[in-house]
């Protein structure tokens, strides 16, 4: 164990680039881009790519970056908590057990955010300036979809409900549409809840980094910043 930590801890460039890329994307989509706008969708897709790359890197990446280096394990967490309680500092090459749980939680949340976003937006618009998509509707088809819905509603209204069984097809179409609308709202809800959860996790993550830095030194931060923890 002793000689395993001869070298100072430093994350590899893929981990750093994806980490800070995702940070930039989250900040960009939280503050800069309008909700559901073309740029929001583009930044979201960039985030999805970075996340996908990081998850791929978890399978084929460097030793510290692979999932096998930081399995989510409650047993390890309880050991870790006991260490914190007794004030012993054990250095970890990869995430510490609590940090590992945080990483998985953030990735899972990001997957929900990205997934619901993609379902709402469809493929990225060719010209991000052209789409100023209003809240939630998202995507180039936003207005069209709304028009379609109105049209269908009118069509449905024109058909007397009493006919019942005879208008199976339109009724089904109507149901589909309603399901679609509910689906859209569902995804919008998912997107928003997941994003709020993400903010909470980010706050916890920062608190965790701060706590660990005070407990066991600057290496935690240094390992993630560009050029940090150089060996000299």
């Amino acid at each position, binding site marked *: 164990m002793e*000689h395993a930590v*001869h*070298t100072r801890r430093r994350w*590899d*460039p*893929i981990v750093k*680039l*994806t980490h800070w*890329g995702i940070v930039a994307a989250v900040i960009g989509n939280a503050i800069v881009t309008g909700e559901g706008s073309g740029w929001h969708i583009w930044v979201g*897709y*960039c985030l*999805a*790519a*970075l996340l*996908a*790359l990081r998850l*791929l*890197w978890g399978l*084929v*990446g*460097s*030793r510290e970056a692979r999932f096998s280096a930081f399995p989510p394990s409650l047993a390890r967490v309880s050991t870790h908590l006991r260490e914190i309680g007794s004030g012993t500092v054990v250095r970890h090459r990869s995430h510490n057990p609590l940090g590992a749980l945080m990483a998985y939680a953030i990735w899972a949340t990001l997957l929900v955010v990205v997934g619901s976003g*993609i379902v709402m937006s*469809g*493929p*990225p618009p060719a010209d991000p300036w052209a789409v100023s998509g209003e809240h939630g509707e998202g995507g180039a088809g936003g207005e069209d979809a709304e028009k379609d819905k109105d049209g269908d509603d009118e069509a449905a209204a024109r058909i007397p409900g009493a006919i019942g069984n005879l208008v199976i097809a339109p009724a089904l179409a109507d149901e589909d549409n309603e399901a679609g609308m509910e689906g859209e709202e569902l995804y919008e809800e998912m997107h928003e809840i997941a994003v709020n959860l993400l903010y909470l996790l980010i706050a916890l993550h920062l608190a965790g980094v701060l706590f660990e830095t005070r407990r066991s030194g600057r290496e935690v931060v240094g390992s993630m910043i560009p050029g940090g923890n150089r*060996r*000299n």
Partner: protein
Amino acid sequence: MTTRPKPPTLGRDQQTLLVAVVVVVQAVAAMFFMADALGDLSEAGLTRHVVIEALVAFALVAGVVLGAWHLRILLAQAERREQALIVARGALSDHINTCFREWGLTAAESDVALFALKGCDAAQIAELRGAAPGTVRAQLSQIYAKAGVSSQAGLVSLFLDELL
């Protein structure tokens, strides 16, 4: 480590960083191409344009995976080199101590032998250890006898031989 010339390791760091940046850009491009191809596929069906787009997307994804794999190898090599250097440094001093023990050198003789290995002559060793030159010369001849060599150069070459 501080006095060592830095350029080679810095070059390797930059090389891995460059590959990493390319992999990241490729991943983003692959994501957009894939999303675009899927969008076109659902809109227009399987046209020639979509097939080509899908091919490009596939090539990009394959590039990302291979790039990541290549990067992993680069990083593993760098780590192995670093470990080897540490091992080599520690190993030589370990090896020297083991030899001294095997030859049955006393503690004082081991000290003298180490100075001899570092190139000091009998007078210098005597000065460093605060001993009489005659004592040190006697210890040196004891050491040579135990090591089976006839001179200081012979003693040094025993260890140099291991490294070459």
